[in-house]
């Protein structure tokens, strides 16, 4: 196996709030390999964004606090790096695309300037003219029409989809080795989402960057990811390659996510959301945090008292954090019998 480009080990991030300490990320471990797309999936509030923002030094501290962990990027621990070195990395070798393009661009600065600024922050030798030329080329690449006119426009003159294209252009401006896309299509109109995914693919091909794709949409995972991390309540509950995940999920939460996915091939009655709400991250349920919602637990004491460790459950390092993961073998999800579109691509 090749060396991972990013290697996160036992990351713990907390927020001190008025209601108590929010355990947003609680001992997360995974690797990202060069050139691959790692999907991170989980309901809203499961710590997906915070885990990424934390390693890049982008969570507000206080109230945030990185309790422990390592995040080795090309052999250097991001969490021990000086602020200056980390700043050089951000937007350079590691770039991010955020969820909401409506609020992620500065309303009082021109779009072109905001991208050119990202280039010049990392390449001292690039003059204003060269930065502008490169920006216009980038805008063209991500599919912004009339890029030389658009260069001088402000964010409010761009539609949501166009803004997200501009954000993607900004992210790949310095040929990053790792591209983190945090729910890049969630805030957009359904009709635009497919186009933005295409743009993202183009950007990936252009920069050859490894990608972390954060989403709560398993459909996107099926389409884009090579390997998948499933997160629940600040922890990794399942980790495997995308085919295995859809063919043989080994965590009841993953199964639940799949059953709540609308499918054209299946009757409406199969569409059932996971019952209940994600748990409070201030006082998480004892034992397995998923037990109040789990169909497999059936009230077994072990689920309520003993925290299930993330353990190898299948070939190629398939990991699951469920005491009774083996019981899912054979007992398939309602959907597993059905061919899963895109899962084999």
């Amino acid at each position, binding site marked *: 196996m090749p060396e991972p480009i990013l290697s996160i080990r036992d990351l713990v991030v907390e927020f001190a709030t008025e209601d108590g300490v929010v355990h947003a990320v609680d001992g997360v471990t995974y690797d990202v390999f060069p050139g691959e797309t790692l999907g991170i999936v989980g309901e809203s509030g499961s710590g997906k964004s915070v885990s990424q923002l934390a390693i890049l030094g982008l969570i507000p501290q206080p109230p945030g606090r990185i309790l422990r962990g390592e995040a080795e990027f090309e052999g250097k621990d991001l969490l021990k790096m000086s602020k200056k070195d980390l*700043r050089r990395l951000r937007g350079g070798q590691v770039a991010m695309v955020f969820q*909401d393009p409506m609020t992620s661009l500065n309303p*009082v600065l021109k779009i072109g300037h905001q991208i050119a600024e*990202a280039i010049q*922050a990392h390449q001292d030798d690039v003059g204003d003219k060269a930065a502008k030329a490169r920006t216009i080329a980038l805008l063209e690449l991500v599919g912004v029409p009339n890029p030389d006119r658009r260069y001088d426009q402000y964010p409010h003159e761009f539609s949501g989809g166009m803004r997200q294209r501009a954000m993607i252009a900004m992210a790949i401006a310095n040929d990053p080795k790792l591209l983190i896309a945090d729910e890049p299509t969630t805030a957009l109109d359904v009709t635009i989402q497919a186009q933005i995914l295409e743009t993202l693919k183009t950007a990936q091909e252009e920069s050859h960057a490894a990608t972390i794709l954060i989403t709560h949409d398993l459909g996107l995972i099926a389409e884009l990811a090579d390997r998948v991390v499933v997160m629940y309540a600040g922890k990794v509950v399942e980790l495997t390659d995308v085919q295995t995940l859809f063919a043989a999920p080994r965590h009841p939460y993953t199964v639940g996510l799949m059953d709540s996915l609308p499918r054209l091939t299946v009757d409406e009655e199969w569409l059932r959301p996971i019952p209940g709400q994600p748990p409070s991250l201030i006082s998480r349920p004892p034992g397995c945090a998923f037990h109040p919602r789990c169909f497999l637990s059936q009230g077994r004491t072990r689920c309520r008292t003993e925290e299930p460790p993330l353990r190898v459950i299948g070939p190629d390092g398939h990991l699951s954090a469920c005491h009774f993961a083996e019981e899912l073998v054979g007992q398939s999800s309602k959907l597993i019998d059905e061919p899963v579109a895109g899962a084999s691509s």
Partner: protein
Amino acid sequence: MVTYIVRRFLYSIPVLFAASVLIFFSVTVAGDPLATLKQNPLASKQTIHNIEKRNHLNDPITTQYAYWLKEAVTNKFGSPLLQPGTKIWDDLKRVIPHTLQLVVLAEVLALLVGISIGVYSAIRQYSIFDYAATTFSFLGFAMPVFWLALMLQILFTNIFIKWHVRIFYTSGLSSQNPGGGIHFWIDRLQHLAIPAMTLMLLSIAQYSRFMRASMLEVVNSDYVRTARAKGLPERKVTLKHALRNALIPVVTVSALNFGALIGGAVITESIFQLDGMGPYFLGALFNQDAYVVMAWLMVTATAVVAFNLIADVLYGYIDPRIRYD
């Protein structure tokens, strides 16, 4: 941008017109402007008759207004009711610059200091500096202006008596022989310093609070996170991406402040015996000269409108969303 400025400018014309109607009618219905004069045994019937005739005081109120407006526009407010020999504008021409010098000096410094304190408080939230700034601004809000003015006067008088150094003067606008050119302006600054400090305290308190709140809102915004995510140095993130957005609400407050202070530094100007708009207004009230009062109110209204116009232009400069709508 140019059309935006022109449009804003044109908007202020009807506003000023409405202000003139409001001012004239509210002052006129308040009572007979010559009531006191008529009780004065020394005032002859002829004098009163002359004043009434000259200012059309016996005509219907709308006609009076038309004559007053004509006089105001074509003849710079004409003469006071009670001293037909003099010109209102001669007085205004003298006091307006004095007040402007004081207010602009105080407010520009207050903006610089207040914004700096606010920004620093926000990026070092809950630090000792932040707590000190908070305490200072509450003092600023609570301290009565006349008390602060007197304390400063006493302080600098004592310094003069004790060490015989003249840092600042404690009253008046100029020395007996201020000299010319640069000497005149240094002397003027020495006179304006303490009154300016008096005015500044409240403004600094206001601006720093405002700036702190506005900055705190902005530093947690998504676009500031984007600015960090692209690897900009923290200085650029704060001064370019955050500050510019955070300034938008402060522009409004300071425009209101400027406008209000042009007419409203009455206490400060009186205590320090500055020959400005404030004492001039008090004099007009004391003499019960309705036409001087109205002229003063018009000038103040114009100042408010003018500073709002400046604020609008600044707004448009800072925030492109406003410029284009």
